């Protein structure tokens, strides 16, 4: 509205020219700008929340990027490559060839820095490599073995004292220095990386007189020591541990091999195994043939190792096995075949394994490929990614657990890939083919995350089957973080379900009473009290849940459970007795007095429960409900009986009303009020007896059929459980649902109520048939808002739910919700990594869930209001 210019008519009639003061105009403009700007900014900030959360989450699903190939000039291997590795900064790479030659390459230029050898002989009989420790076992033709350790040494030499070479180095420039490569970093320091090769004294494998050269070797080095397995030319298979002994006199260290022979595989001598692998901590040996056969030996006891199982690693007969590798941790074997498929096999422990060690190898993951043979498999040294190279020059990068293809590429000349190397930080991928080495830069952001990995069951290493697991951290080094969100979503739903189960009926019934049966003045007082309940800090509720309610419920579980039956029964029975009271008294007690009378039934119900509960526990549940829940004693029948009792009661009520309702209406027309009341009491008792009979019958049938409620809805008791959470969460959601539904019920137009009462309906009939249906959408939206609150509640579930991310509907077990999980783990998550972003995803999911639920509720409520005004 523009009021700054007085209208012409005013001006004409006015005695003097009226003009708005300048300061007023300025104030007007300033106010408009400030309010629009401030208000707009505030609203924008609010929408920023959603945008920011999404911005953090989106990189989680980004694909890895692979730069175009950069050919390295030198280092083309003339012999098969046994192993290769780069240093942490991807500046140097060593390549071990079959001849024992080790060449060290600069990755920036491709020039060969130096050439070493791990073997004194020109051609070692066999080479074995342990990727975790970078140790090579070199077997010579006389049957002896040496260990060669290839390690990168990083030093930061003092630039001042080391002469011209380093002091003139410009930032980011590299130069050979002291047998390694020096680089000036951005902060001015010089970093020098150098390969160090140390070769141990030789040791003999076994004490046998016949010194046969080894054909296949593998070793596994852990902190505890090393394990070596060897297959000799004469078919003997041996495995044993290496012990380092020190000579007391000379102080010289020698390596001693102690082990035993494994039973020789019963395979034709003509076909030789192509790979020998030590699995895990070196306690399993796997021998693999070209046609896909494999034998796994249990070598936990080195002296009495036996064959545990024989395997078929390939699916069909016309496929050949081409490459065998191991993923990080060496517990998973990667098997590539001539049709391009790669299978990942690891040990599982199924119930009936039927093997000596109770374990079986299972193919947990399968990467189908497209028919082109696998010619190279290379695992990452830090994660469960691995690269696969093919005969037509293509190569791909996969993440094992999520089965996600991260990147793919092709060698420049299209010749077969024969070796691959992933740098430890996964920022470089090196590919060797007939044309020599080519380097790719790699950015593989969050390989372990994908929609399926987050939401679908994932087959983790050494699990029996695909499962939903959330386990973000552990003490172990080679632990794989498991980000299955489903257990948390499940926990959230479970918390919501049980708290709504308790809270919704209570809140809705309470709202009906206060809107229909309370005088306005009392209603305001009651509503204010309940609003104070809404304002209780949830940390207080959580604390009381964990420290007061949980122990209390545990100590008197039977009484608490009995009160779920006794309190409603006490109320229903109380009403019947109250009907017997003189009508004058009944009519005189209205509003809060009536509430008071009704409330008296509560302590009676609780008292009955505290007596009855332990008695039932003794009689039906063998004296200990917890023991019964834990399946220690007792049968299924009493549990079924109690579970089915409410259903049976409702069924019996309806059945009796259906069968005898018409008759009762006819006969009772002439009855006095007292007679009606007596009849009602009688009918109530009859209904109760019927319900008990129904429930007992059903319970007997169900337990005869072998069904047991324990194991699903009921199970082992944990002190912090869904029952406690549901109860305490009631404090948080009852007030919200109550207030909103009370508002909805109260805003039903008064004329409807008056008309219904005027037509002769009782207040209860009015409430049930007129008010509640009219307000139904309002009540629905109130429940939705309550649901929104229950979904996001943090402190209560954090302190009272035990926080175990398990998935079962058991009322007596704990759970972990999305919100509690965020509260526990976000402070420890590293900014920007997968864990951090996954937690943001959880927050975004919570945000979206509650926002959708609340918007739905708001729209419903607005429609209800419009309708209510129209009526």
């Amino acid at each position: 509205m523009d009021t700054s210019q007085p209208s012409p008519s005013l001006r004409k009639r006015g005695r003097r020219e009226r003009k708005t003061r300048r300061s007023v105009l300025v104030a007007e403009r300033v106010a408009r700008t400030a309010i629009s700007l401030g208000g707009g900014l505030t609203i924008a900030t609010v929408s920023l929340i959603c945008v920011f959360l999404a911005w953090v989450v989106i990189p989680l699903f980004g694909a890895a990027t692979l730069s175009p190939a950069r050919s390295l000039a030198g280092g083309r291997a003339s012999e098969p490559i046994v192993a290769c590795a780069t240093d942490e900064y991807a500046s140097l790479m060593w390549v071990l060839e079959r001849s024992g030659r080790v060449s060290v390459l600069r990755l920036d230029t491709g020039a060969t820095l130096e050439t070493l050898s791990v073997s004194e002989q020109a051609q070692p009989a066999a080479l074995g490599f342990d990727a975790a420790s970078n140790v090579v076992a070199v077997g010579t033709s006389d049957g002896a073995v040496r260990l060669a350790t290839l390690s990168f040494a990083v030093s930061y030499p003092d630039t001042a004292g080391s002469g011209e070479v380093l002091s003139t180095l410009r930032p980011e420039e590299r130069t050979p220095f002291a047998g390694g490569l020096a680089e000036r970093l951005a902060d001015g320091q010089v970093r020098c990386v150098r390969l160090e090769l140390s070769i141990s004294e030789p040791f003999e494998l076994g004490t046998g007189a016949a010194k046969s050269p080894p054909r296949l070797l593998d070793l596994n080095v852990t902190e505890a020591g090393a394990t070596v397995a060897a297959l000799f030319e004469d078919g003997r298979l041996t495995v044993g541990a290496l012990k380092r002994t020190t000579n007391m006199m000379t102080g010289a260290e020698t390596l001693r091999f102690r082990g035993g022979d494994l039973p020789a595989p019963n395979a034709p001598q003509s076909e030789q195994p192509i790979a020998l692998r030590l699995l895990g901590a070196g306690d399993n040996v796997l021998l693999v043939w070209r046609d896909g056969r494999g034998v796994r030996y249990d070598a936990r006891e080195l002296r009495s190792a036996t064959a545990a199982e024989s395997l078929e690693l390939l699916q069909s007969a016309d496929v050949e096995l081409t490459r065998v590798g191991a993923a990080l941790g060496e517990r998973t074997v990667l098997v590539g075949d001539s049709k391009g498929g790669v299978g990942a096999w690891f040990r599982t422990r199924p119930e009936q394994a039927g093997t000596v060690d109770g374990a079986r190898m299972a193919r947990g993951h399968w990467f189908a490929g497209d028919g082109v043979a696998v010619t190279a498999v290379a695992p990452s040294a830090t994660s469960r990614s691995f690269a696969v190279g093919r005969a037509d020059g293509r190569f791909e990068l996969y993440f094992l657990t999520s089965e996600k293809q991260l990147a793919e590429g092709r060698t420049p000349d299209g010749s077969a890939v024969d070796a691959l190397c992933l740098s430890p930080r996964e920022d470089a991928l090196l590919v060797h083919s007939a044309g020599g080495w080519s380097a790719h830069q790699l950015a593989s952001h969050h390989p372990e995350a994908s929609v399926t990995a987050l939401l679908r069951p994932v087959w983790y290493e050494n699990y029996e089957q695909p499962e939903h697991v959330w386990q973000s951290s552990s003490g172990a080094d080679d632990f794989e973080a498991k980000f299955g969100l489903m257990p948390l979503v499940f926990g959230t739903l479970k918390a919501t379900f049980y708290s709504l189960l308790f809270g919704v009926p209570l809140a809705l019934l309470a709202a009906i009473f206060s809107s229909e049966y309370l005088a306005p003045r009392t209603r305001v007082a009651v509503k204010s009290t309940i609003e104070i309940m809404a304002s209780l800090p949830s940390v207080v509720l959580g604390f009381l849940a964990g420290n007061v309610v949980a122990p209390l419920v545990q100590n008197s579980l039977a009484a608490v459970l009995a009160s779920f039956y006794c309190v409603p029964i006490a109320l229903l029975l109380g009403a019947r007795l109250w009907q017997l009271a003189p009508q004058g008294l009944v009519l005189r007690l209205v509003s809060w007095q009536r509430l008071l009378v009704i409330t008296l039934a509560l302590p009676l119900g609780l008292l009955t429960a505290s007596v009855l509960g332990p008695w039932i526990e003794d009689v039906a549940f063998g004296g200990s409900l917890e023991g019964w829940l834990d399946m220690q004693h007792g049968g299924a029948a009493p549990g079924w009986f109690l579970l089915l009792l409410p259903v049976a009661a409702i069924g019996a009520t309806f059945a009796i009303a259906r069968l005898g309702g018409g008759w009762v209406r006819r006969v009772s027309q002439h009855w006095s009020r007292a007679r009606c009341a007596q009849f009602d009491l009688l009918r109530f008792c009859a209904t109760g007896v019927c319900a008990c009979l129904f429930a007992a019958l059903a319970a007997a049938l169900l337990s005869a059929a072998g069904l047991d409620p324990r194991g699903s809805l009921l199970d082992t008791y944990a002190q912090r459980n869904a029952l406690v959470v549901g109860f305490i969460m009631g404090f948080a959601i009852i007030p919200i649902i109550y207030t909103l539904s009370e508002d909805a019920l109260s805003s039903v137009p008064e004329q409807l109520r008056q008309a219904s009462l005027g037509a002769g309906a009782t207040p209860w009939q009015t409430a049930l048939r007129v008010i509640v249906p009219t307000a139904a959408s309002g009540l629905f939206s109130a429940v939705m808002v309550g649901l929104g609150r229950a979904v996001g509640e943090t402190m209560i579930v954090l302190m009272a739910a035990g926080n175990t991310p398990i998935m079962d509907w058991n009322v007596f077990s704990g759970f972990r919700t999305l919100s509690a999980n965020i509260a526990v783990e976000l402070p420890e998550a590293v900014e920007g990594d997968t864990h951090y972003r996954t937690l943001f995803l959880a927050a975004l999911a919570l945000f979206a869930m509650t926002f959708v639920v609340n918007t739905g509720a708001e729209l419903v409520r607005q429609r209800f209001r419009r309708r209510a005004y129209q009526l």
Partner: protein
Amino acid sequence: MTELEFDPKPRVAQPTAGPARSVRRRDKRRATSLFAHGEPMVWLTGGALGLALAMISTLLFVVISRGLPTFWPQPVVEIVTHGGERFAGEVALSESFALGPEALAALPEQAAARARAELAANDEQIARRMLRSGNYDLTGTHFRWVSDFEVAEESTPEWMLCVERLEWGRFYGVPTALEFDGRRTDGPSEQMWAEFERAHAQARATWDERRSIEEHDIGRLAKAKEEARLAVRSAELAHGAQSPERAAAEREAEALSAELDEEMRALGERIEELKALNAGRRLLVRTADGAQATLPLEQVVRAYPANRLGAFDKLAVYASRVEEFLLDSPRESNSEGGVFPAIFGTVLMTLIMSVLVVPFGVLAALYLREYARPGPLVSAVRIAINNLAGVPSIVFGVFGVGFFCYTVGGGLDTWLFPERLPSPTFGTGGLLWASLTLALLTLPVVIVPTEEALAAVPRSMREGSYACGATKWQTIWRIVLPRAMPGIMTGAILALARGAGEVAPLMLVGASKLAEELPIDGAFPYLHPERSFMHLGFHIYDLGFQSQNSEAAKPMVYTTTLLLIALVVVLNVVAIWIRARLRRRFQGAQL
């Protein structure tokens, strides 16, 4: 909760029972059927309401009944068991339990016989008490259970002291002598006790002086040193490692350091002096089992002969403990002492939050209601803001830690405080970020009632104002805002209450279990918004959920809970009261 419905409904629902006269047939007496009243269902609804009210009152009762008596001094009981053990302590808990046959069989024969006798006499239940027996440094335990059948002898010795110490928890014992600056008074006696009270005050004064030096003066010196180091680093970053500026800064820092070291030495001497002074002030105590212990007076926070106290003395102890609770810092990993830093942190954080949220919330409401052109967009924004109130608080915490702490704070750090990196200044949780996060969280709590209050100002009043020639801003400022003031106040107070009680986001953005320094102190710039702070709600979480010695911490948690509930409930009651007044006023205006 924040709905402002004002429908003046003069409605009393009354059961319209009683015979309704039939007009058509006189012979048949038609009564409204009793069944039509649905009495049982009405009882269910009433029972639900009653239960809800009972739940809230039980909860408040539990908190008050456990929180209030915490500080009341209890008598100290000395117990001699049949096994010959003697110990003393305050009764912390009494309960009865059923003794299983295995446990009974494990008992020595005589004890088992007594237990059986009690079981038979006492309905198969054994009564037992948990005694806070203290003397942790001697016994290695704070509490011990004693079943009634084990007790051979029970007494309340007159001079049994309850001593609260700075370390190791409480001590119970009878004083045998007081040593004060070379004088020795043997006891226990009235005269010795009077002497003790004097001596104790002196020793504590000396200790206070020492602590003040240790905390403030030495802290100041350390800070100055740190500043000098940062100046060197700053010069290095700005001008390079070999620059003359850096060399100059380094020289300056060295000079300062020498100066500070000198000062530090002087302070160290003074501290040694005070230590030596207090070394000779000791109380010799004999515990119930006859062990001798020496308590340095400076370590004694409070000591009283529990069994000699009259009602007024007890009240004095109670008052002194309440005072300590409200005004002192916590000690013994928060399970003793006070919660002053937490109160201070809560209040300060809530104040900063409201300073941020109230003006912006009102601006947003004014914009939405008065300036923005009504349309689907504004309705959508309104619904969105309304729903923001239902978004879980933890989500705001996640946003706060990601956006404020890491993004904005990290940016500020590299821009303003590069010399302190990699240790973050603003790039981690702190007071400012917590306040901002909670301000976002409570924004809808302010906007929604403000908007409703603005909408409720009758149109006629605005039109009257415009008709008098007032501009829009003048109308808003002089007519609309004053009338909407109660609504805005309600919103602001509800926001305060919500902010004070919210914990989940604070766990992520800056509340800490023990903050060394208050966010306001005497060092420039006085308010330190980057510091982490203590918060009552987080204090409850930490003590109740994560405390090591949770039994000893329990009384503290209940009192803290009581304090927090009182704070929040008072704020809410005020808001409800204002709203009720507002409603009456509006109803008056509408009529």
